[in-house]
């Protein structure tokens, strides 16, 4: 309920602040689990993916976001779950697989952090392994225009409401199906090909 409310409020804010265009929404399954992978070029990307995804999304979020009392209270209620970026965090994988097992969609930024220059960073091997292990549809989501508005090295003016709004295009691509890779050996074997497919899929929507 709270999540729905926050999405409602968020949509009003972002529609007032930016001109947001959504493309390829039909790629998002109406039910069942999937993993949404997105490029990450700005600190406003998580808000955009979260709020404008047609389904309630549960997103891997860096653990430092939860360091404040207010975010510790709010973030889990809007579908964020923590991942520690400075070490391998098996708990994150367990939670992601549990959510998928419950039929919920999970959002991941496979680069692991924001890009400094708008180009892709190296994708994390662990994320690709998760996609292979989960065996659910993977939806590429390209966020276009946020780097120009709020690059990592710059600041975003949250209150700059203008008549001529900056344009952001959220583009969903066709689902990628990797099939089941239950064993570690199978995942290792499929890793290079899967990595290439994910990179190409994200490039096609950005």
């Amino acid at each position, binding site marked *: 309920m709270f999540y729905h409310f926050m999405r409602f409020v968020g949509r009003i804010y972002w529609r007032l602040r930016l001109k947001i265009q959504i493309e390829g929404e039909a790629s998002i399954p109406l039910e069942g689990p999937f993993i949404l992978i997105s490029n990450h070029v700005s600190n406003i990307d998580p808000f955009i993916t979260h709020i404008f995804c047609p389904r309630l999304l549960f997103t891997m979020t*860096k*653990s*430092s*976001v*939860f*360091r404040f009392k207010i975010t*510790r209270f709010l973030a*889990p*209620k809007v579908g964020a*779950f*923590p*991942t*520690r*970026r*400075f*070490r*391998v*965090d098996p*708990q*994150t994988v367990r*939670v992601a697989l*549990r959510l998928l097992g419950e039929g919920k969609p999970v959002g991941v930024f496979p680069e*692991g*952090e924001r890009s*400094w220059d708008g180009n892709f960073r*190296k994708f*994390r*091997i*662990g994320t690709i392994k998760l996609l292979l292990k989960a065996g659910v549809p993977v939806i590429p989501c390209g966020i276009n225009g946020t780097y120009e508005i709020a690059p990592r*090295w710059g600041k975003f003016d949250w209150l700059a409401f203008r008549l001529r709004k900056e344009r952001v295009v959220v583009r969903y691509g066709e689902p990628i199906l990797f099939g089941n890779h239950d064993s570690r050996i199978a995942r290792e074997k499929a890793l290079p090909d899967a990595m290439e497919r994910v990179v190409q899929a994200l490039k096609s929507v950005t």
Partner: protein
Amino acid sequence: MEAHQNLLRSEAVLGTVSEYLPMYCGGKLLGYTEVITEQISGFLLLGNTLEFVDENGKDILHRWDFEQLNSLIISSKAIQIYVRKEGLYQFRLIKDSPKLWEDSLKKSVERFYLVQGLEVFTYQPVIKTRKLTA
């Protein structure tokens, strides 16, 4: 930042993890978040090793070889390193850029392993190396 015998020298506040807080939603464990407690101000030095010295620049409070580093990342205005068998250290940089530190540290780590005939092929979540191919 000052030119010194070190590649980099920056004023920083050292913080370490005081606890890992479990996060729950609907009674289910979501994961953990680290609570970092800032402890002492000093200078972070990058040379042949990574050092943290006190405010007077005399006493070395910590010194790590590059092979001890398990990972390094930027977290807001800080650079974080995860040291094998020790844990996470955070250095909140007072004036300098954490990006500069991340890039410089990565170069130093790369150079360290290169001498041993290894190349770093990933930095995150942990630093991983492989034998250099000719």
